[in-house]
């Protein structure tokens, strides 16, 4: 019995803290799911579905526009962007995820936008700040830009 206890202790000490569930705030899984949901929302032209990923007080900093604060302004901006995009599809790839405590995370990723005719429309990078709001992960700050020369 004492020996089993010693083995258990040794195992616990040898394990990385993540394996004990301490370091995992759930941010990484939520962010990866969020990226898929954002992309799916865009590809189906659903501004409301994308907006649901943002917190009530979120700030979106889109190129070519003033800052949009709050879900209503964010949805309106997305609706205009979707209309201008003319049926483009978006591929979003989270790159780096930096956890900040248990309730925040910073994500840096990249996007590729393909036109309805299959042409390369745009590609660039984004930074999103995520926060756990009432138990679920939401985007609270979002900014991106194109990497293509003008």
């Amino acid at each position: 019995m004492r020996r089993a206890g010693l083995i258990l202790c040794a195992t616990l000490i040898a394990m990385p803290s993540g394996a004990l569930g301490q370091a995992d705030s759930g941010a990484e899984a939520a962010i990866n799911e969020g990226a898929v949901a954002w992309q799916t929302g865009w590809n189906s032209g659903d501004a409301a579905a994308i907006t649901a990923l943002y917190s009530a007080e979120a700030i979106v900093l889109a190129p070519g526009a003033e800052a949009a604060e709050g879900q209503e302004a964010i949805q309106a901006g997305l609706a205009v962007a979707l209309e201008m995009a003319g049926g483009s599809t978006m591929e979003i790839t989270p790159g780096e995820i930096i956890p900040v405590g248990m309730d925040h995370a910073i994500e840096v990723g990249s996007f590729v936008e393909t036109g309805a005719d299959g042409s390369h429309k745009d590609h660039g990078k984004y930074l999103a700040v995520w926060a756990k709001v009432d138990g679920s992960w939401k985007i609270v700050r979002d900014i991106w830009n194109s990497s293509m020369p003008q």
Partner: protein
Amino acid sequence: MRSAVLVVCAALLTFPSAVLGQADPDAQVGVKEGGMAWAAAWNAGNAAGIAALYADDAMLLPPQGDAVQGKAAIEAFWQGLMDALPGVTVALETKDLHNLGDVAVEVGSYVDTGADGEHVDHGKYLVVWMLKDGSWQMARDIWNSSMGQ
């Protein structure tokens, strides 16, 4: 003698840390000073001064280009932009600061003005600041223009 030592100790404990030559760990102060130093360095054509505000492993995500990582590359990037925009001055303004402990997220706006006073550009930025070795350093920096393309 002992009482003199006690007075010095008390004075040191009472003084704010900035008086002792350490950077203020308060994000509000650190970010404000950092932003002022950034704009002053740009307006003085001092790319090294700008680069000094970034963490060693910082990353820039500039429009119309790929990500730029590390201090040397960041200095070269800003030097290149200064050379391309002679006489352009920049004004920065913090709009929102979210302090998360050792990390702070700043949202702000910038205005670029030409040498003859004309409006060159305006837009917004997001900077992730990190408290490292007692000072607030820029760890991630991304921005875009608000002007129509």
